């Protein structure tokens, strides 16, 4: 069945008249409803993993300045707690909410309801089983010892199959699209779902199933780990930003040409970045140099995206006050620019000499994963959840608590730790300073980091309570919202041409 006949068939099935705005709105509502169960499942399991990840983040943070804390239990030793934190937030929270947002966006932009959504729900189930087995494995000491790929090899295939299933489903949706024009978010989404199984599959086969010899492991490790960020989280995060900024403020994206430039330069350069994690390491000079050049070339997509978003938004900053979605998304978009610039800087040999091996890198990772990606996901959830549950957010105050605690928390995390990490690197590069003095220097900054972590934990609790409250409302009969906190309740005067 080719896509035209398929879309005709779908159109015939769907209610509504596409010739007017109301008909198109009803169609959107239909699509939202078709996504409800799988998207909700992915969001909720993502949030559960977020809470678990936050708990272990706090434990790891405390352990780093108070080493005796819970040191007697083998499964709670720092090396495992930290690993569990990374894998729960990356594969539990970030990836699962990314999948949910990607499915919802893909269906909406293709104007196709999610077909056989039960398959996605089953994929979610398998994904969570695989991840749970993997996390227990890490606690038991079965971590693979490969950064960003610690989940033991008996658990990764389950996760991989879920990913592959979701990717196939997304491609089917894409093929069935009834909207001929491909919006920029769709490019990124399609790229992400094709790229991720490829890098994940390569890493699993060449590092876990049939490990390659010597430092090629390190090369593949960082090719994979950097691409998880660059080819999985970043495209989905950018897809969400590209969708929600024009959506919420109701004006077109500034420039299609900048979108094209940003997308293809990211596709071309980002996947060559990985070796900048090994500057000074035991790899041939050319590999490092290639990655440094590719990292600097990332200035092109970063500026293209930043300019595009800024000029779309300019003149509408007042809307940040009323729309929680826009507030989180814009915070994330600004952080994307900042973390990318920091990344370019850190890739340079002269800067890396100091910042490599220090807390500077840790701060950078959180700027990217949390301040950019996490915040964009939160913003997306604020938009998507009311639509798929057909209920409004119950509390304005909880949204404020969530936003300010996470925004201030991550600023308090990233800024001091970036600076302290740089100073740590300077001290470490001065052989006249005793190593233990370098350790002592970092202590107050690590304590401050724990404090920042508490703020983030507060934000997450507020959000989870709020989502729970929203879900409780599903048990009540539907009521038209009394107070429309999202956009002030106006029905748009303009209609899409």
């Amino acid at each position, binding site marked *: 069945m080719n896509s035209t006949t398929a879309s005709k068939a779908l159109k015939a099935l769907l209610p509504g008249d596409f010739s007017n705005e109301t008909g198109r709105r009803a169609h959107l509502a239909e699509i939202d409803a078709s996504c409800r169960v799988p998207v909700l499942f992915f969001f909720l399991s993502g949030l559960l993993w977020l809470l678990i990840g936050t708990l272990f983040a706090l434990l790891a943070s405390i352990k780093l300045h108070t080493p005796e804390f819970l040191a007697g239990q083998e499964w709670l030793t720092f090396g495992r707690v930290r690993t569990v934190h990374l894998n729960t937030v990356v594969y539990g929270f970030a990836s699962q909410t990314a999948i949910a947002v990607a499915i919802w966006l893909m269906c909406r932009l293709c104007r196709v309801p999610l077909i056989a959504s039960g398959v996605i729900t089953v994929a979610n189930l398998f994904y969570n089983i695989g991840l749970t087995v993997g996390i227990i494995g890490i606690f038991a000491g079965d971590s693979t010892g490969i950064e960003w790929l610690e989940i033991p090899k008996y658990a990764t295939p389950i996760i991989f199959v879920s990913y592959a299933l979701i990717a196939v489903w997304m491609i089917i949706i894409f093929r069935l699209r009834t909207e001929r024009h491909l*919006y920029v978010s769709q490019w990124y989404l399609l790229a992400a779902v094709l790229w991720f199984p490829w890098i994940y599959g390569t890493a699993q086969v060449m590092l876990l199933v049939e490990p390659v010899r010597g430092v090629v492991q390190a090369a593949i490790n960082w090719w994979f780990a950097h691409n998880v960020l660059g080819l999985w989280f970043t495209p989905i995060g950018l897809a969400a930003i590209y969708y929600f900024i024009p959506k919420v403020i109701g004006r077109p994206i500034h420039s299609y040409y900048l979108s094209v430039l940003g997308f293809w330069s990211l596709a071309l350069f980002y996947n060559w970045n990985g070796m900048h994690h090994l500057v000074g390491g035991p790899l041939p000079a050319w590999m490092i140099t290639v990655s440094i050049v590719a990292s600097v070339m990332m200035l092109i997509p970063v500026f293209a995206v930043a300019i595009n978003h800024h000029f779309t938004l300019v003149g509408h900053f007042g809307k940040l006050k009323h729309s929680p979605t826009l507030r989180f998304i814009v915070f994330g978009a600004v952080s994307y620019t900042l973390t990318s610039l920091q990344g370019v800087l850190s890739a340079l040999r002269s800067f890396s000499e100091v910042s490599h091996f220090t807390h500077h890198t840790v701060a950078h990772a959180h700027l990217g994963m949390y301040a950019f990606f996490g915040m964009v996901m939160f913003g997306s959830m604020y938009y998507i959840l009311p639509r798929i549950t057909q209920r409004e957010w119950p509390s304005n105050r909880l949204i404020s608590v969530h936003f300010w605690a996470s925004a201030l928390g991550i600023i308090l995390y990233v800024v001091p730790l970036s600076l302290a990490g740089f100073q740590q690197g300077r001290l470490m590069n001065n052989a006249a300073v005793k190593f233990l003095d370098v350790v002592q220097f970092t202590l107050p900054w690590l304590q401050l980091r724990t404090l920042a972590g508490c703020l983030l934990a507060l934000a997450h609790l507020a959000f989870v309570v709020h989502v729970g409250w929203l879900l409780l409302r599903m*048990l009540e009969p539907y009521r038209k919202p009394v107070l429309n906190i999202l956009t002030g309740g106006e029905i748009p005067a303009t209609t899409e041409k």
Partner: protein
Amino acid sequence: MKQPLDSHRPLGVLDQGEINDVTELHSAVIREKPEPREGFEPLSLWIVAGIAVLLFWGGSYLTAYSGRFEAGEFSEFQHGRPLPVTEGPVDPLAALKREGMIAYNGVCAACHNEDGAGKTGVAPQLVNSDWVNAEDASRLVRIVLHGLTGPIKINATTEFNMVGAAMPAQYDGIGGTDAKLAAVLTYIRTSWGNTAKGVTADEVKVIRLAAGVRTEAWTPVELLALPVGGGASAALSSDQLKEKLKALPADQLQSLLKELSK
């Protein structure tokens, strides 16, 4: 305001949205702004120029620092990183101390601490110690060559007991050359407030050869019994040295001679 639309529905049942009035139900969707579109602002020339500059830089950097794309070239400078040029005459003592510091921090500092203060129950202090600051460094040379065991008295007053392990022989650990050992001892004897004389590689060599193939660690008692002034060149005449060498097994003699001829 309207009444709840499906108030006939019993409480506690999950609402699956089976309501006829779609417009009312999907008020969130209805009030949305239209789906996003793209504007068509042309690219600024500045951006094009910026990209051109970046690509040019990238090409140049790639050509200059890729070590001819060879697997065995690890330095981005194809012929090795240019060493920093030192202005003015090089201070030989400073150079020796730097070498010594590298080896000391790598090997000795684990027990004696990076500032030479030692660690209780692990290793005695090197700062302000009569053993370290003695005019004659031969005992120190021997300690590093073969190790040390047993209680040791420092400054004639402080009794130090090494608990558990003794100090192992560290000659190979610090680099396995006389020059390295001399550098380490010079560093120790002239740092952290210590003001003793430096040690030369030749002095070390004499003592090392004189000691022959000793494998067991020294005890402080044994060391104190040796005559001051080295007990090496002083204690062994050249004849005695020859005798000692003759007594060695052939292969060890070979390696010793090889060492001597350098």
